[in-house]
């Protein structure tokens, strides 16, 4: 092998291609006491990458609260876990697949789903729900329809095939994502609390097994430049976006769960980013052990592969398992039943070193600590972004009715039916509140009466205007959504999408958003149990809005008590929460052709907490028949959406000004109740501002003091028609 591979000393171009600065490379040599071999250079390149080492974000992530009585597993493992009750752990995580999805929307999105599912079932949990948060550029941008269609088809293609329901999500459009869309995939699974599997390579002498798809040359990071050095002449360049195979992942899922049902494994980790390298190094690092891998034994998809490629390949649907000695035959039997490759590729050692051999020759011999603990950590310079301009007032609309219809037809606000009907959201027969039917999705906790509520949220415009407030509001909104269906918010996973950390303004946004999220998590007793950081989301120097996506998980003791957001007829509508609306970052502002501007609505975390507590108490007392939080589009949109979903009219007094009707605030919930007096009394006792808005009934939505008296049919036409128009023209 490898006579043609580059030898040290490596020139500046090679180091740049591996993402290592001269200072970082000097540190590699110092740690090794010599120059790295070619495969070792590749290993350092991926282990010290932003993606694996969190080198720009780590100092800030430490400020997030990660503990609480509900936490079973905090950050640092493949996924986080909370106590679901009745002996169950609820395991979940969210992860980005932004860049691949922009290059190749179908496969990029599909493999994003595959990757996050592996993170969950690696823990021993059967996945029971998927969600996704998508951010696209302007609807009228020429690339947008193609990207939306491809991403939605890719998510559906993977999730539908593997048989995990996609039960919810969030889609927004904004010019800041024109050149850099966001595809964040969230997965949740359940496992017996005492059978959570961790990514640890423990027990000296235990065999290390490779399970799943064969390794190919796809997704080799940083090797594009270098691969030309390998090839005889002009071997064709391989695509760098991995291709998903959901069928193989389904087999891998079932095989893993079969294996995990018995006492066979010591540790297990999926091969995600940086493939074999990061899975083995992270497992050894967590256990404080060493590992030797015999790379020539790795199942290969094609001939002529070399250690460098095997170590860096990001081929999908692969797992690394540390098996208890004596259980090898059973492991092989169980996996083989599903027709998958399974073979021993190494052993756990006590050396603390990551060693790889090829035909008996050592090609990598590096201290695990050098790859993991010694990875560079940067506290990059920050500088505050200049405060955003503020609008004091906007002209009143000439027709409130028309303005409401226009808002309902904004793709960010409009019904996402076109999206979720392409996802199988019912398979596994656990979906209690379907997509589009409530503020959060609800699935049942298998074999119990309990329910799990899920919501993903973040308004990047708010974060652009003020990353602290925006980050906190994302947490608050996700908690309100979960509380609207009747679930107590428990914990979050986050997916932090930002532009280049090397720009001080972006680093400041990141640090501020972290502090905002941390403050809200503390106020709501919802710690962070897992997450992912995606930086460098920019094209030609133009960054995305800071978008720290929040995935909130809540629990209901009785899933059958979950409520949706469709107004029943003949009920009172009551507004809970006193957050004052503002035009800053609002959909109404942008609809006026206005540039993004403040002021943001105030952030009042104690008030948000009180509102959530009230909502849950009222829900417990049977006073909440439907609930919908007012977010994008403001109060009038929230009331109208409940009318459309319930196919019922309403006569309400929301105030007559554009600010009252269309201004936005996070911290207001509209509740349909059969006993408004009791609800108002509870609100007063709890110190939560509340007022009666009106009643549901008839087939028109009438807004008192305005010209709006709109047939529900017209509301529906505007709300349902907009999204298909974006993608299908």
């Amino acid at each position, binding site marked *: 092998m490898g006579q043609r591979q580059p030898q040290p000393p490596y020139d500046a171009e090679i180091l740049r291609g591996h993402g290592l600065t001269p200072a970082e490379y000097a540190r590699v040599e110092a740690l090794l006491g010599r120059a790295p071999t070619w495969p070792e250079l590749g290993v350092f390149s991926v282990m010290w990458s932003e993606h694996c080492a969190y080198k720009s974000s780590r100092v800030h992530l430490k400020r997030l609260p990660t503990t609480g009585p509900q936490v079973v597993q905090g950050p640092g493992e493949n996924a986080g876990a909370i106590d679901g009750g009745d002996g169950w752990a609820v395991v979940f995580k969210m992860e980005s697949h932004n860049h691949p999805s922009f290059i190749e929307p179908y496969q990029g999105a599909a493999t994003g789903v595959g990757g996050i599912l592996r993170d969950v079932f690696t823990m021993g949990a059967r996945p029971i729900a998927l969600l996704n948060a998508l951010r696209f550029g302007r609807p009228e941008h020429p690339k947008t329809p193609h990207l939306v269609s491809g991403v939605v088809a890719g998510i559906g293609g993977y999730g*539908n*095939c*593997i048989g995990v329901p996609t039960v919810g999500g969030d889609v927004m459009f904004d010019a800041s994502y024109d050149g850099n869309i966001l595809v964040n995939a969230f997965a949740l699974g359940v496992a017996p609390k005492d059978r959570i599997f961790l990514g640890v390579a423990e027990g000296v002498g235990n065999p290390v097994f490779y399970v799943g798809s064969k390794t190919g040359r796809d997704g080799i990071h940083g090797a594009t430049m270098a691969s030309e050095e390998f090839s005889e002449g002009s071997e064709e360049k391989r695509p760098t976006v991995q291709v998903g195979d959901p069928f193989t992942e389904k087999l891998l899922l079932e095989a893993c769960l079969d294996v995990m049902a018995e006492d066979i494994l010591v540790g297990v980790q999926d091969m995600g980013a940086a493939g074999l390298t990061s899975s083995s190094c992270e497992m050894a690092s967590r256990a404080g052990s060493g590992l030797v891998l015999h790379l020539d034994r790795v199942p290969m998809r094609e001939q002529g592969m070399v250690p460098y490629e095997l170590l860096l390949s990001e081929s999908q649907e692969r797992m690394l398992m540390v098996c208890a000695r004596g259980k090898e035959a059973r492991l092989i039997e169980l996996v083989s039943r599903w027709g998958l490759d399974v073979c021993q590729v190494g052993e756990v050692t006590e050396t603390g070193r990551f060693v790889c051999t090829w035909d008996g020759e050592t090609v990598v011999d590096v201290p695990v600590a050098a790859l993991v603990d010694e990875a560079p950590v940067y506290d990059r310079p920050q500088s505050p972004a200049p405060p955003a301009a503020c609008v004091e007032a906007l002209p009143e609309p000439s027709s409130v009715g028309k303005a409401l219809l226009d808002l309902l037809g904004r793709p960010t606000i409009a019904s996402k039916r076109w999206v979720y009907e392409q996802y199988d959201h019912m398979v596994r027969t656990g979906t209690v509140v379907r997509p589009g039917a409530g503020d959060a999705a609800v699935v049942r906790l298998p074999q119990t009466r309990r329910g799990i509520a899920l919501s993903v949220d973040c308004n990047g415009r708010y974060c652009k205007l003020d990353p602290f407030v925006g980050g906190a509001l994302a947490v608050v909104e996700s908690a309100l959504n979960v509380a609207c269906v009747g679930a107590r918010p428990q914990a979050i996973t986050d997916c932090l999408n930002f532009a280049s950390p090397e720009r001080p303004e972006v680093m400041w946004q990141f640090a501020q958003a972290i502090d905002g999220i941390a403050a809200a998590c503390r106020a709501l007793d919802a710690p962070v149990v897992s997450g992912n950081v995606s930086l460098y989301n920019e094209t030609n120097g133009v960054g995305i809005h800071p978008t720290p996506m929040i995935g909130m998980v809540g629990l209901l003791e009785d899933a059958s008590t979950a409520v949706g957001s469709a107004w029943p007829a003949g009920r009172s509508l009551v507004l809970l929460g006193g957050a004052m609306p503002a035009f800053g970052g609002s959909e109404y502002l942008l609809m006026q052709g206005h540039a993004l501007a403040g002021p943001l609505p105030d952030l009042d975390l104690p008030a948000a907490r009180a509102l959530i507590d009230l909502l849950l108490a009222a829900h417990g007392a049977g006073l909440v028949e439907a609930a919908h939080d007012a977010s994008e589009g403001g109060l009038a949109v929230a009331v109208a959406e409940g009318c459309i979903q319930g196919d019922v009219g309403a006569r309400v007094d929301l105030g007559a000004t554009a600010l009252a009707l269309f201004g936005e605030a996070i911290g207001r919930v509209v509740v349909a109740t059969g006993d408004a007096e009791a609800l108002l009394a509870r609100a007063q006792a709890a110190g939560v501002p509340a007022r009666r808005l009106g009643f549901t009934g008839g087939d028109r939505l009438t807004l008192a003091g305005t010209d709006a008296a709109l047939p529900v049919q017209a509301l529906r036409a505007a709300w349902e028609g907009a999204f298909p128009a974006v993608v299908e023209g």
Partner: protein
Amino acid sequence: MRVAVVSFPGSNCDDDCVRVVGEVLGRTAYKVWHADHDLQGPDLVILPGGFSYGDYLRCGAISAHAPIMADVADFARRGGAVLGICNGFQILTEAGLLPGALHRNAGLHFICRDVHLRVEGLATPFTAGLAGRVLKVPVAHHDGNYHADADTLARLEGDGQVVLRYCHPDGVVDAAANPNGSLGHIAGIASAAGNVVGMMPHPERCAEPLLGNTDGLAFFQAALQTLGG
């Protein structure tokens, strides 16, 4: 009633079918493995939904040749009750146990939503006593567009082998109620003898109050009655 649910590689709805029969109806349901040759004496065999073999070839084409399918065919020939749901329906057509084929949906998208079905035609183990009923049941498929040649279609219609049609909530059948372009708005058909039925909608997904709809239970209850408790 003993119900065998076949697990092919890529079956996703096998657990859901076992759950309805076992936990909701309190009868015996068990999974049988595609590579085996033992149905274990069932009264009813279900081929469940999913993406067997990833649907990477034509949907159901590979599963139709699974070892267990020889036993399913024998069972069906002897008059045994066989229900294919979604991918299971596709497998039955590929295996020649039902005529016709399921093409890609007319709209080319995967579709997951509730539809309404009108029950008609001959009395099968799954539809006996339901003729004339309109039931709300979800579909979730990419390839549910039923096609058959004109002669086959005429025979199906003439012999009452069309047992489920897409319709509006009031039972009216027309193109607007048809989610996938199926000829004759066909959602489900039966074999000439009526013991083998294929349907694209998923009755097992609407058989519990918690899921907001129990219309699907009617098919399972009909089977219970026909096949003897």
